[in-house]
């Protein structure tokens, strides 16, 4: 069957089960768009290409499917870079299709030409420039295969303009295999047996889950392991939701803004089962002191994650879910149980730490505390909303005060820490789940980075709710300046801000504001009840800090507490 490049693209997207793409047209992709409007694919027209990538990312994080976006060459392509790097750091499966100038112009500094394959080489899992229309179908199939297999990640495919209308014979591509790319899914049983041996003798074990648990859909297996041997569980920011926040074995998040009990448990445990994590510096603090009494078992599908930052006793390369299934099966076969007395001592200790320092804040009658807004939001949404965040204090308070019970519920830029992520990601999540409540918990700084996407939300009737914790400053950097730079607030205090209520209205959305603590609940209730997109502006205490806090580079036991 003879098809054009543009038709092949639509054909492959259909084959790969794509129903929605996020994009922004331009000269180099005009032929692709001309074919797109004739297809059944749903296209969400964003207002900035960065928004397209974050939206596709939010869609992927919420649904587990591959997020797809389509943008033009040059500036269209460069605008995607932050979004691609965000997805790469958090291992989110995405395919980014960029237009390129026609093949005969490449290298000539043509209009809207940029070497996007060169630019994105270090922040994609893989990328391609397609030279011939005959290669297009296979390249696209490989892109989807690479994006979703192994440790997932973004893959970019750069398509020169002239390929759009070029014709070639198209035959459906058989399932892709790449000889130099074979992710290890099944764990080495010898390693699993070693892990089991450590579990048998451990007195003070802790499980530490990360984003890999969510990506490999291993939450159930993680929970089984924890309950079988009564092991307390902590997660990284990316792992929130992988273990129910309401479970008695839950320790809370660990790390720089982790709970006291999680950091103490990690620092005193004698066995750490790390699953789908990469030991980020925001988690470990000073690496020499991290879990220094523990033997560490590290399960991850990406061998480079293992022994990169932290030496481990038992490395297990494999899919988190498959590895946990193998470990759980062995535990059952051997009839392994936690000795009650011994384990009770450890759980009592954890409980004591919990009582010693809880996450806390003081809500006065006059000024709204940001944590209070999130607690009320948690209550009003019954803990069921999909939450996206921006980056900084809003993100940390969301992690601390909204208790996530299921995976794919908390969507946040963990690795790259991208301000401006939350709103477009919420749009993507809302596209994936039109019936669910999706809330972007934002700061007044970060919401301004991709505020233009409110127009997208309004146009497509995506009822995302934006909760702005408006402290009139760049709160997290201000906090560092307060604590470590003698309150020299170098350019972190905003002297001017838009009126977010009017801004919402200008976009055709609803705007609400609360300035007093007694208005918080009613404002949230009103906002959540509105059928369309809403911005809720909460004027909060500007000097509030996120606690606990471990100063960068210190052991995670060195916590500044409330």
């Amino acid at each position: 069957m003879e098809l054009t490049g543009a038709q092949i693209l639509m054909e492959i997207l259909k084959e790969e089960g794509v129903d929605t793409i996020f994009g922004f047209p331009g000269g180099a992709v005009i032929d692709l768009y001309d074919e797109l409007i004739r297809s059944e694919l749903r296209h969400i027209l964003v207002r900035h290409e960065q928004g397209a990538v974050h939206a596709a990312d939010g869609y992927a994080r919420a649904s587990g499917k591959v997020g797809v976006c389509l943008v033009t060459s040059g500036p269209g392509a460069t605008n995607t870079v932050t979004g691609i790097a965000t997805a790469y750091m958090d291992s989110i499966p995405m395919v980014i299709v960029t237009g390129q100038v026609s093949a005969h112009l490449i290298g000539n500094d043509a209009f809207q030409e940029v070497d996007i394959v060169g630019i994105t080489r270090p922040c994609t899992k893989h990328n391609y420039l397609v030279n011939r229309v005959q290669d297009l179908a296979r390249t696209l199939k490989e892109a989807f295969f690479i994006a979703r297999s192994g440790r997932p990640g973004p893959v970019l495919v750069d398509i020169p303009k002239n390929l759009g209308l070029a014709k070639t014979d198209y035959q459906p591509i058989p399932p892709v295999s790449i000889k130099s790319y074979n992710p290890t899914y099944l764990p080495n049983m010898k390693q699993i047996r070693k892990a089991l041996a450590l579990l048998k003798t451990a007195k003070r074990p802790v499980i530490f889950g990360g984003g890999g648990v969510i990506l490999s859909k291993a939450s159930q297996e993680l929970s089984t392991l924890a309950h079988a041997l009564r092991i307390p569980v902590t997660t990284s920011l990316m792992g929130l939701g992988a273990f129910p926040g309401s479970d008695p074995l839950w320790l809370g998040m660990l790390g720089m803004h982790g709970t006291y009990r999680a950091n103490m448990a990690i620092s005193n445990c004698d066995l750490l089962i790390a699953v789908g994590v990469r030991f980020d510096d925001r988690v470990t603090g000073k690496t020499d002191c991290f879990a220094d009494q523990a033997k560490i078992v590290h399960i991850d599908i990406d061998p480079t994650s293992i022994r990169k930052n932290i030496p481990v006793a038992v490395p297990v390369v494999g899919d988190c879910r498959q590895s946990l299934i193998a470990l759980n099966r062995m535990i059952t076969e051997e009839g392994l149980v936690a000795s009650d007395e011994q384990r009770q001592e450890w759980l009592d200790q954890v409980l004591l730490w919990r009582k010693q320092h809880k996450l806390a804040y003081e809500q006065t009658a006059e000024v709204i505390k940001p944590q209070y807004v999130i607690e009320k939001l948690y209550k009003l949404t019954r803990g069921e909303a999909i939450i996206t965040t921006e980056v900084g204090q809003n993100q940390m308070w969301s992690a601390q005060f909204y208790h996530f019970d299921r995976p794919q519920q908390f969507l946040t830029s963990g690795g790259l820490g991208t301000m401006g992520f939350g709103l477009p990601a919420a749009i993507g999540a809302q596209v994936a789940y039109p019936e669910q409540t999706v809330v972007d918990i934002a700061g007044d700084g970060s919401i301004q980075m991709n505020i233009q996407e409110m127009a997208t939300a309004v146009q497509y009737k995506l009822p995302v709710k934006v909760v702005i914790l408006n402290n009139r400053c760049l709160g997290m950097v201000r906090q560092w300046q307060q604590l470590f730079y003698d309150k020299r607030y170098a350019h972190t205090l905003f002297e001017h801000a838009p009126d977010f209520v009017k801004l919402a209205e200008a976009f055709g959305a609803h705007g609400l504001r609360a300035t007093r603590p007694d208005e918080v609940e009613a404002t949230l209730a009103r906002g959540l009840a509105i059928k369309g997109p809403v911005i809720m502006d909460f004027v909060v205490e500007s000097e509030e800090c996120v606690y606990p806090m471990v100063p960068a580079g210190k052991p995670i036991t060195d916590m500044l507490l409330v």
Partner: protein
Amino acid sequence: MKRIMKSEKHTLTMLVDNEPGVLSRVVGLFSGRGFNIDSLCVAETMDPKVSRITIVTQANQPLLEQIEKQLRKLINVIKLRDMSDDSSVRREMALICVQARPENRDEILRLVNLFRAKVIDVASNCYTIEASGDEDKMKALIGLLRPMGIKKIARTGTVALFREPKRGI
């Protein structure tokens, strides 16, 4: 277990897809992650779809492990081997243009013979020598020629192969 191990030279050989941009992926990985490259060689193999890249790097054991894992993670890297020990042969090559005054011509030719090198170009006042060998031999030859006045030098990186019969690539 902490990183107090000493840093040593390692010769890493990899077979990669012979496609545009692949070398850039490999080199970009080294610069982006702060790994070091002492030397680099790349050329097509018997299979025109496959190139061989040989990189000499300095690393301690944990860092070497990380470098190898990161390289293997690249989609275009088909195979990777450490060819640093006696189970492999390593060679580099140099073209050395050395001043050939009447009083040291004999000495130069003697050195050329001793090192089994060749004079491949002769001008009125200089010889261009082609030499190959392992790193130590090249260092020694260059050290001995230096006092006579080396005008120009062009050196390749190291290439390496496993001794036969041995484990593949």
